[in-house]
């Protein structure tokens, strides 16, 4: 029976860029556009960062500085588990009296899963519990920074050249004396437009003497080009005869966790700070309103804004399926739940012939023609044992039972194919009161807003035919 409650049995159609069929529990509903949205047709944004082990929130500026890594937590380089700090007592000489020794606390990192410790790679024990561990620095950092500066200088020159060309073209339209560019040129060289006219055809080497700004601290940055080597170190002689100690050689995955060093030996694997996770907020692409915004606090699972489809659209679920036989009419029991607090009217329609959405159905379906009325969701109803009769007149052929905001109703299914799964589709039309729409100030007395009718395409997969 529980298999009937699986969400993939009932799919709602989302009309986005592509038509997607998704269970209602995975959909969002944009109140402003009054449409269903799936994860594919919303834009995702990073909301906040937090560390998965210490659950500490990190503001995004700090996260950017720390390269999205937690300051306190470390990952084991061997098995990627979180490292824990352990303390031992070591004897250390007292500062005042070298002959006496006292027990001092020393901290080291250890992995609870693979038993790796920071002593294996030769990291000395630290005297503070946190903050003492440093990651090794990339030896090429300086060279790379110099290269970036050099290229930035070239880039600035190119930009200057390009801007000058743009301004030079507009020469007839702008008075010369007021061009910011010529003022610069005139001040530097004492020449006027003549220089510019000559310059546009002049060889590029003329720019080399030009310094970029008026300030004196801008000097030309040159770098030595890299030197190529004549010889490369060969493999050591004993490489061919030395047996391989597999635990000492790092696996590719362990190496790639540290892209700067990629050590081949396990004795050089240093732990790295733990990478952060992020919380995501979703935004409708059309109206740019937020559909989902989580709480700032990492330990809280609630949402500030949560426009999920299950809290606005009535949900169809399959309750029981009889034996389905080819070309024989059978009754399937479905339930319809009303998520909102006011009364909802639902009507069902069969899909017409040639409906472009109706591609998967393999059976004919007859839905109740009368409108179904659903009572509003009453939060206190579960505590109220004496449920009062709700006073709805239900046709017993259509409505099987009614319980607070839920009804069970029958549909008739006639499978058209001899083999395969039976899939049916129909349209669900319900009224939706948009409480998000602003209340006009002139009509204060009106508490209810306009109801709009929404239609959704629903597909049910009823399983295989009974043999």
């Amino acid at each position: 029976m529980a298999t009937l409650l699986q969400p993939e049995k009932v799919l709602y159609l989302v009309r986005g860029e592509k038509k997607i069929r998704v269970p209602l529990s995975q959909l969002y509903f944009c109140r402003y556009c009054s449409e269903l949205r799936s994860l594919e047709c919303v834009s995702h944004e990073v909301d906040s960062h937090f560390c998965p082990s210490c659950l500490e929130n990190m503001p995004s500026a700090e996260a950017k500085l720390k390269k999205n890594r937690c300051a306190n937590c470390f990952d084991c380089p061997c098995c990627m588990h979180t490292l824990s700090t352990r303390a031992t007592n070591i004897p250390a000489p007292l500062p005042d009296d070298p002959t006496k020794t006292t027990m001092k606390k020393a901290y080291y990192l250890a992995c609870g899963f693979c038993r790796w410790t920071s002593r294996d790679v030769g990291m000395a024990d630290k005297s503070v519990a946190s903050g003492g561990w440093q990651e090794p620095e990339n030896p090429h950092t300086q060279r790379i920074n110099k290269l970036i500066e050099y290229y930035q200088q070239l880039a600035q020159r190119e930009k200057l050249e390009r801007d000058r060309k743009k301004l030079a073209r507009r020469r007839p339209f702008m008075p010369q004396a007021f061009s910011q560019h010529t003022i610069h040129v005139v001040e530097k060289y004492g020449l006027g437009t003549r220089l510019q006219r000559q310059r546009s055809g002049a060889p590029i080497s003329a720019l080399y003497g030009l310094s970029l700004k008026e300030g004196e601290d801008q000097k030309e940055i040159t770098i030595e080009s890299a030197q190529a080597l004549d010889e490369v170190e060969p493999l050591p002689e004993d490489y061919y005869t030395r047996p391989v100690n597999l635990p000492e050689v790092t696996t590719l995955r362990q190496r790639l966790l540290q892209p700067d060093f990629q050590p081949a030996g396990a004795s050089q694997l240093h732990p790295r700070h733990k990478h952060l996770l992020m919380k995501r907020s979703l935004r409708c692409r059309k109206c740019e309103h937020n559909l989902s915004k989580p709480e700032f606090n990492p330990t809280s699972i609630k949402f500030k804004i949560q426009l999920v489809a299950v809290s606005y659209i009535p949900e169809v679920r399959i309750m029981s399926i009889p034996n389905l036989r080819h070309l024989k009419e059978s009754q399937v029991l479905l339930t319809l739940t009303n998520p909102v607090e006011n009364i909802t009217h639902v009507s069902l329609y069969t899909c017409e012939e040639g409906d472009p959405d109706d591609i998967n159905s393999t059976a004919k379906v007859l839905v109740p023609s009368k409108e179904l009325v659903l009572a509003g969701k009453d939060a206190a109803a579960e505590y109220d044992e004496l449920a009062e009769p709700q006073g709805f007149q239900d046709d017993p052929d259509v409505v099987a039972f009614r319980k607070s905001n839920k009804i069970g109703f029958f549909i008739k299914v006639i499978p058209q194919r001899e083999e395969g799964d039976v899939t049916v589709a129909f349209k669900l039309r319900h009224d939706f009161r948009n409480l998000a729409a602003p209340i006009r100030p002139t009509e204060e007395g009106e508490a209810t807003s306009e109801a709009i009718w929404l239609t959704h395409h629903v597909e049910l997969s009823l399983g295989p035919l009974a043999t």
Partner: protein
Amino acid sequence: MPLFEGLGSGGEKTAVVIDLGAAYTKCGFAGETGPRFIIPSEIKHAGSPEAVRVVQYNINTEELYSILKEFVHLLYFRHLLVNPRDRRVVIVESVLCPSHFRETLSRVFFKHFEVPSVLFAPNHLMSVMTLGIQSALVMDCGYTETLVLPESFESIPILSAWEALPMGGKAIHKELHSLLSEQCTLDTDSGPGLSLPTVISAIPEDVVEDIKVRTCFVSDLQRGMKIQEAKFNLDGSAERPAPPPDVEYPLDGRKILHIKGSIRDSVAEMLFEQDNEEKSIATLLLDTLVKCPIDTRKVLSENLVIIGGTSMLPGFLHRLLSEIRSLVEKPKYRDALATKSFRIHSPPAKPNCTAWLGGAIFGALQDILGSRSVSRDYYNQTGRIPDWCCLSTPLPDSVYEAGKTPPPLMKRAFSTEK
């Protein structure tokens, strides 16, 4: 200065640099010294045990679009943790990447993630940027293939002189897998010394890759020649040099695979064996030199740059240099090439991240990154990405006003309007 990188200086955020390789993807931010993450280019779905490769050129557009969308989503929201809408993107790619793949990738970035601009940078050119030199002969030994492309005279690629061979990590894995299946035995609970195909049908590729990385190496020239002779020798007179020791490799925790020592050094020989067309990785370099104009040859041969993950095998570089030096004496090249000196560079990054580093250096140049990228407006207007091999693309107005102005000083090679 690195402290204030993203916070001051005009307020533009650092660009995202992605090197989408066939086996591994390197992703990170511009201006940094190394990628943040090197992850396998594949997606794991909850249902199936097999991962789906991201870089596939033969599948239809819809499927490729959804795979790329999922992968880029993971890159942004699990590894980089930034909003796609705020930052420009630099994609380091191979020159031989099919246009269909590029178009789909750019559609994913522009339509779904709405990035402000995308720049496609060739990986050979980017590796030259990490050295501060103007000309180099770049060889990329990757997963699917090895591609050689020379760059000269302020880094213009000599496109007519490219050479490629499908010898890369994938070929090594295949060869290694077949050697293991034929020659190695397995110890399991049921008994020792079972042959491999009886126990498991195929070793998964990541296990084969791990075996390659941890146990295999490239022998030096003399030893390698002897191994090749012994392999191809028909009358059995050539002696194979003593193999290195066997390795016991644990599989799944219940089986132990005995890897024969002879496999360890012979599997990498296939990179240097000359096939029926007498091509091997080393001849690629020499053939390229022959195709280049004579005045550039000396400069290029003294500035070799080797990038790519496969070149990180122990002993690879030494062997490659020795092979080139011995091949240049052969009659085929001796008369054609006057230059006999070969020098190799060591870039400030590991060979598998060098191209990424070049992209990061370029991405840090905010002044011109904007003008050379394809912006979202341009893409929405034309609906296409300009390609170096396509002449029908209209020029974007922002860069060149008139055809009369000479192209700018730097990197005239791969600007988007070709």
